[in-house]
């Protein structure tokens, strides 16, 4: 391909800076990302640097991966226009059943994990059936589920704590082992970081090549370089943090599970048919049905998927605690739902992203962790978390209101107009005729 038939804009435009963060729709997430960075910085200063120490970051991943996993599932439920209040109870129930079955039936750890996944899926299928095929609102079905599975959990466990075997703990709560030459770092973690950086470069280059071969407009080279550089820098920083922890600790397995799930569901929602169906049903159910989407199957899928993920979260929690107990999963649904809405999802459905939910979940996780580090008691912690949710969503709502004065709104409008000015597509006649 010669240089003359590629459609690439040349020259530097300030508005192109936003392209580094993606091509469309990511502005809102950008503001949440900014909020997350600010929150982390506040805690970093408040805790005298403990927040971003290796030990705490590793702990953060292990202790709060459940919020992120639940947020990822929850965002899909909420995009479809439903809600799931039962996730905490389901997580606890799966945890206790898995722990009990390994103790009483001597199931090996891997069979325990498979059982947990299957049980989560079965519970999800049960709840999904009521939602999708009977037509009971998910709010009610999962409110019932919240009671049913909490009760069942205490029934199975006799309100006792049931320990999980070591193999199970190692598998879900372990770290990448120490191998290779003795360095101040965990070698496997470094290797993992290197692979991620290479993957980032590979995908950036490939995506550009694909756009080129299909004749689509290309973004300026410096944008790609800057984006790749920025992402790589973040990954390298994180890698060094995780690799330089106390001996015997490194990047935890739960982090790998989390990363795989996030990537998988980000891909599922943005690039597959089922993902499109989820947005279509949530945005306009009747229109989706008249376009050939099976809305019931979509409802069923998201509900089943959510409980499966809740099961995974419950097992991760049990592995970390070393046991499944009656208080597991209490109020998890609230953190997960809050994370999803902080991440920009709409109550009415149709809007939201996995990436946004992860950022929102991280906000909740960092708040939990940071406030604990600082020593804020749980009562005040709840108050602060509630206020953060209110403010975060409030800003979002104010941004959307047009014609009303709001400083942030005006700032956003400016940024936005700068961004659309830098769209990649060829400039056409720019009159969008009807704004009346």
């Amino acid at each position, binding site marked *: 391909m010669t240089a003359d038939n590629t459609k690439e804009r040349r020259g530097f435009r300030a508005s192109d800076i936003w392209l580094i963060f993606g091509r469309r729709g990511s502005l809102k997430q950008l503001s949440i990302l900014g909020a997350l960075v600010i929150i982390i910085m506040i805690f970093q200063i408040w805790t005298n640097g403990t927040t971003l120490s290796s030990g705490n970051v590793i702990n953060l991943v292990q202790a709060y991966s459940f919020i992120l996993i639940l947020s990822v599932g929850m965002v899909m439920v909420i995009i479809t226009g439903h809600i799931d209040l039962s996730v905490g109870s389901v997580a606890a129930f799966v945890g206790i059943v898995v722990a009990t079955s390994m103790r009483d039936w001597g199931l090996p750890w891997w069979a325990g994990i498979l059982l947990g996944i299957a049980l989560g899926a079965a519970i999800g299928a049960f709840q999904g059936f009521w939602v999708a095929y009977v037509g009971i609102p998910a709010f009610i079905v999962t409110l019932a589920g919240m009671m049913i599975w909490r009760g069942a959990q205490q029934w199975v466990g006799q309100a006792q704590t049931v320990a999980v075997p070591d193999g199970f703990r190692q598998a879900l709560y372990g770290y990448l082992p120490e191998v290779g030459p003795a360095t101040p770092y965990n070698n496997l973690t470094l290797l993992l970081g290197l692979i991620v950086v290479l993957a980032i470069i590979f995908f950036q280059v490939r995506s550009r090549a694909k756009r080129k071969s299909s004749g689509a407009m290309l973004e300026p080279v410096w944008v790609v370089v800057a984006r790749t550089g920025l992402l790589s820098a973040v990954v390298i920083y994180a890698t060094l943090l995780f690799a330089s922890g106390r001996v015997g600790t490194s990047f935890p397995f739960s982090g790998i599970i989390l990363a795989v799930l996030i990537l998988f569901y980000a891909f599922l929602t943005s690039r597959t048919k089922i993902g499109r169906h989820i947005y279509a049903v949530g945005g306009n159910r009747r*229109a989706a049905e008249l376009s050939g989407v099976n809305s019931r199957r979509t409802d069923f899928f998201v509900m089943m998927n959510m409980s499966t993920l809740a099961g995974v979260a419950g097992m991760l929690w049990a592995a970390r605690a070393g046991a499944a107990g009656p208080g597991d999963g209490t109020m998890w649904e609230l953190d997960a739902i809050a994370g999803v809405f902080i991440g920009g999802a709409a109550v009415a459905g149709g809007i939201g992203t996995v990436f946004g939910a992860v950022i929102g979940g991280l906000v909740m996780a960092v708040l939990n962790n940071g406030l604990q580090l600082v020593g804020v008691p749980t009562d005040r912690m709840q108050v602060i978390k509630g206020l953060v949710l209110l403010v975060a969503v409030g800003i979002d709502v104010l941004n959307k209101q047009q014609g009303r004065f709001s400083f942030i709104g005006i700032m956003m409008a400016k940024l936005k107009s700068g961004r659309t000015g830098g*769209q990649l*597509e060829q400039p056409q006649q720019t009159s969008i005729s009807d704004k009346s």
Partner: protein
Amino acid sequence: MAHEDANLLEMVNITKEFPGVKALDSVNLAVRRGEIHAICGENGAGKSTLMKVLSGVYPAGTYTGDIRYDGSVRRFSGINASEEAGIAIIHQELALIPELSITENIFLGNEITSMGRIDWDEARRRTNELLQRVQLREDPDTPIKYLGVGKQQLVEIAKALEKDVKLLILDEPTAALNEHDSQQLLRLITDLKAEGMTSIMISHKLAEIEQISDSITIIRDGKSIETLSVDGTVDEDRIIRGMVGRTLGNRFPEKSSRIGDVMFEVRDWTVQHPLDTTRLVAKNSSFRVRAGEVVGFAGLMGAGRTELAMSIFGQSYGVKVSGEAFMHGEPAKIRTVKDAIKAGIAYVSEDRKSLGLNLLDTIKRSIVAAKLGRISKGSVVDDLDEARYAEEYRKDLRIKSPTVEAGVDTLSGGNQQKVVLAKWMFTQPELLILDEPTRGIDVGAKAEIYQIIRRLADEGKAIVLISSELPELIGMADRIYTIFEGEITGELDAARVDQETVMRHMAPTQKGHAA
């Protein structure tokens, strides 16, 4: 003009700017007392913006220019202020609460109370009076949800009358009405005029404007172009010329004579109402469509045209009792929408906002939504293919937007309709059922949609065109079926038929609704 009292309303040099856009540019409007004043213009010309300025939705201070109303310069701070002054707007989208009764709706926010208690007897009595005035024979206790759109419109007007309105503004009052209800509404507006009411009417239906209005102000690109007084010399072509700034050629494209074999056939199709099993919305309907043929479906609102179409399209409406469909002579088993799409049928619904589009989506994603398989490998969507196809359709159908990444909610009605058409063309159908494809869109976009329909037919597709606008049916269709109360009552050759004949077949037991 000079006389102080001759004009109830004068809007002088109104300019309204949004960031980057001048929506109104020194617009002038003078409305005489007791007249029906029409405002014409294409979508986006600024009609609704002007009415929002007048009613205080855009409060004083956000625009420049003067509003002189009832003898003095007024600066409305909001809708309440303009309502107080006797200005009422009846919006395109009705603002009634479906679960509440007529009385409750009329007095909502304006309840008659004595010592804090609502006096329902008095409210009901006044409602009865109002309903008589708007010629609506309904029990005041009837919940709104049981009324058709036409009757709801009358309730809206009754509600405005209750507030002692001096200036009634009707925004596209007949857009959702059938011929009969439209005529009734227009008659009511004329009757109110006889009682001294001043009305402003925004409408795309030029025939109606010609029929009832006394003067017409034309707005184009945010500027008031001219005010015509309606006498014998003003006709539709004259109005259109003002609206688009040039003479439009023949509104309907030339029909083709290249009509092929029967492509799609339906025999004895019978459908029950989804809730009321004793009611049949389609009775033993049989019809045929040939390749390259445009077949019109005429009928009053509620006659069962949409219900029949949706039932055929994957049984999306009601319960099918009996009937067979044939595609190219082969029986077609169509139980779901998916089956229908696979069989090569597309249905463009009459309600693009609630049934045709996901308004949260981008143009790109909307266009491919009904056949993701065409751009997917396995179950993974190829986003480059998607962008390429979307761009292709955007250019082909001249969807006015700089990019396919724009949200469909930012588009005008006409352009949204083009996105819906693109969405269904993308499924590569053989039969397209178009349900009111030009409803609520402006003259320019209508002409474009007619061209697209014609082109599809010329490509050998079979087209079913459901429309309440008879000139459109006669102008576009090769053959017309008429439907009355779920039954096909006639099959007419569009080349040898006039509106009255079609009307007679659409409403065999009723007479004289035709204008």
